[in-house]
């Protein structure tokens, strides 16, 4: 059965440079001297450490527990000793630090005891969710949204189509391509498991048309229960909303989620991780990472989470050069790293080395509209830019700023070299901060209100409570005591009430 594909608006035909890395077997990245595991490698709340400094841990042992619904556990990626739980540099464009658990490997790489789920088909889908959460599975495609949350939404809502996303649309990145070629069986089995967990009517695995080897590997394994689809190579076809549009022709409502139109999308690596979690009890402790760009030996690596980026670069023969830029992720959406001394996390799909570009001054917008032509969401990028630049954030919101997926197509084509995406990010974070501030003020106001209500209720309700008590207090002695306390209270209530606490 072939599925009629649809087009998404805008987008760019980009050179892919996939041939650099997609044909070569991935290498196992050696054990580093130090493993640094950020407690937050996903969207949501950071995990809570459940080990202490100097604890011995085993490979695969849970060392951070999910701290809430939108949170996942983290696991030791090798055996060793916890040497620190504190702030360390993490991948972030501003070079910030965050809480991490540091492990000094003992070199034995000894697994803890892990337990498989037998016969997943007979298992309650809810049990599968727990397994997925306990194994620390997040979306491994890039955003890092906890997989169990999406799957739970899939369990609670009817899922028409489950899409397993193998569309690597950003140039240079081939880690999913390699994963499919090397672990196609995991991807297909994981697809069946997620499909079972959410009872999806249709199951689709999508790859890009320039991934023939991956397509062939999957084609050998899929049965009638899974549709294998080749999506035309056009950036950003691998974006969740774009992929949904290409495969189903449906649009995810603005501000809504894919599940609202009965679609669940998971990355191929996530599907493979689900397979490992269910059949072996293996948590997510490593991932495929593409090292590409101006490195002597570009390659895909299988890297233990927490391994420094610098180690991966060294494996590919790269010598540090201050004239180069290191990007974590692809060239369109990746983040610039100030230091390579940051760990690989669950969402690190690519390390890209670029020579420092010529500084290009930002010129005035000439309203050429190229940005609007390539925008896959059909926004008015130049209008959003003007709104953001003028600090007119409300106008930006009305022009659907929050529908922007930050794919970077607009900046890519801008002849005035305006860093449009940077303006949008700034506006988004400004609006978010403003909302937090307002929420904070609302919160303080409601707390103050609640306190006043409580005080008032106390003074009003006490006599009633006493009336109830009197029935029980039938002895004269108790009666007298109640009497004494009432007189005392009346005396106190006659004094002026305490001044309300000042609030900001």
């Amino acid at each position, binding site marked *: 059965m072939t599925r009629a594909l649809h087009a998404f608006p805008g987008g760019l035909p980009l050179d892919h440079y996939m041939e650099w890395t997609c044909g070569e077997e991935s290498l196992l990245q050696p054990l580093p001297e130090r493993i640094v595991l950020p407690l937050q490698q996903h969207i949501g709340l950071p995990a809570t450490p459940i080990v202490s400094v100097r604890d011995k841990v085993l490979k695969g042992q849970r060392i951070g527990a999910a701290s809430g619904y939108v949170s996942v556990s983290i696991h030791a990626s090798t055996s060793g000793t916890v040497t620190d739980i504190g702030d360390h540099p993490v991948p972030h464009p501003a070079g910030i630090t965050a809480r991490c658990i540091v492990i000094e490997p003992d070199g034995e790489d000894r697994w803890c005891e892990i337990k498989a789920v037998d016969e997943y088909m007979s298992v309650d889908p809810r049990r599968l969710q727990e397994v997925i959460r306990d194994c620390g599975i997040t979306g491994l495609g890039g955003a890092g949204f906890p997989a169990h949350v999406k799957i739970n939404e899939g369990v609670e809502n009817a899922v028409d189509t489950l899409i397993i996303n193998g569309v690597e649309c950003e140039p240079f990145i081939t880690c999913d391509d390699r994963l499919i070629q090397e672990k196609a069986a995991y991807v297909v089995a994981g697809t069946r498991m997620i499909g079972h967990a959410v009872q999806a009517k249709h199951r689709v695995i999508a790859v890009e048309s320039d991934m023939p080897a991956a397509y062939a590997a999957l084609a050998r394994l899929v049965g009638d229960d899974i549709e294998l689809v080749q999506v035309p190579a056009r950036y950003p076809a691998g974006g969740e909303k774009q992929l949904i549009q290409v495969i189903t022709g449906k649009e995810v409502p*603005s501000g809504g989620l894919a599940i609202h139109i009965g679609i669940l999308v998971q990355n191929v690596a996530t599907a493979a991780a689900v397979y490992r979690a269910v059949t072996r009890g293996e948590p997510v402790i490593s991932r495929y990472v593409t090292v590409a760009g101006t490195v002597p030996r570009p390659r895909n690596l299988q890297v233990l989470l927490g391994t420094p980026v610098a180690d991966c670069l060294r494996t590919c023969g790269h010598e540090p050069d201050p004239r180069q830029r290191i990007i974590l992720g692809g060239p369109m959406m990746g983040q610039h790293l100030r230091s390579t001394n940051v760990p690989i996390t669950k969402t690190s799909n690519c390390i890209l080395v670029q020579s420092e570009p010529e500084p290009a001054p930002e010129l005035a917008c000439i309203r050429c509209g190229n940005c609007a032509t390539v925008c896959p969401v059909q926004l008015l990028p130049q209008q959003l830019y003007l709104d953001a630049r003028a600090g007119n954030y409300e106008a930006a919101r009305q022009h659907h700023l929050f529908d922007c997926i930050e794919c970077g197509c607009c900046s890519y084509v801008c002849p005035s070299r305006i860093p449009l995406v940077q303006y949008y990010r700034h506006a988004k974070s400004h609006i978010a901060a403003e909302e937090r501030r307002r929420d904070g003020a609302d919160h303080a106001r409601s707390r103050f209100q609640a306190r006043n209500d409580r005080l008032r209720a106390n003074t009003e309700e006490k006599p009633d409570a006493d009336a109830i008590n009197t029935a029980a207090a039938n002895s004269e002695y108790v009666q007298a005591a109640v009497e004494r306390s009432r007189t005392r209270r009346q005396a106190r209530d006659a004094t002026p009430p305490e001044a309300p606490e000042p609030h900001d």
Partner: protein
Amino acid sequence: MTEPVVISSPHRHMGMTVRDVMLRVAAALVPGILVYAGIFGPGVLIQCILAVITGLATEALILLWRGRPLRPALSDGSVIVTGLLLALCLSPLSPWWATVIATVFAVGLGKHAFGGLGQNLFNPAMVGFVFVLLCFPAQMNQWPAAPVEGTTSPGITDSLAIIFVPTDTAVDAVSGASALNHMKSRLGLMEMVSEIRTAPIYGSLGGRGWEWIALAWLAGGVALLALGLIRWHIPAGFIAGMTVFSGVAWLLNADVYAAPLFHLATPGATLGAFFIATDPVTAATSDRGRLVYGALIGALACLLRLWGIYPDGVAFAVLIGNACAPVIDRFTQPRVLGVMP
């Protein structure tokens, strides 16, 4: 300590800059300029050089005055395009001072009074052109005579003399009515289009000689389309607007209204449709908006030609279109993906 610069994605760029765009647009004008010079003599080249030099000098002075860096603005190529378009709208017989005034006005008031590149509401070249057209109607309506038998186009010395030391006799010797002008005045004398068109100044499509220039602008415009420097919506809208408007008039009365092809085969129409109305700064921004915008300009240009007092109305139509662009934008916003109407 200053806040460290955050380098934001994307980390690649297609490489096209404003300068590349402008210089390619200027290059697309070259075939038309050469055809123009070949038919009507080197006057047009002198006008182009004069306007570009004046434009650059004006821009430099204003930038100094505004305390802005010279290099980025002067090297972005936009003033070259403005100068060329202005020179190509003026008659090659225009006196030097008219060209200089028009250019200073275009760059000074048309562009920098609004804040420079990207900020101007009106097409600077048209602002400058319309200014001198309104101020000096006599000089602005001296057009070189059509290359019919017995005439020769002026050489380089004659052209320099006409432009820099203009005398009425020298200009009269080489000037003649343009096709649009001739058509307008003869229609005023109650002659019929079919009669008027038998005059030797007409070619098979429009004005003799001028129709070739019109075709050369069209070729340049097609090159711009092929290179992806402009999109088809504005030219298509313009041509459709002009065709429909003049076509309806022509169908109603072919004796007093020329056929659509006559209107389209004028240099003003093709230069306007592909090079002037497509100035992105002053045009509508969405595809749908650009169709409306182009159609409005095409129809207005035709309206002004048929009933206005000036033979051509493209410049006025473009300025009115510029004024309407913001409101067109407002009502033609594309539907954002996932936003249900």
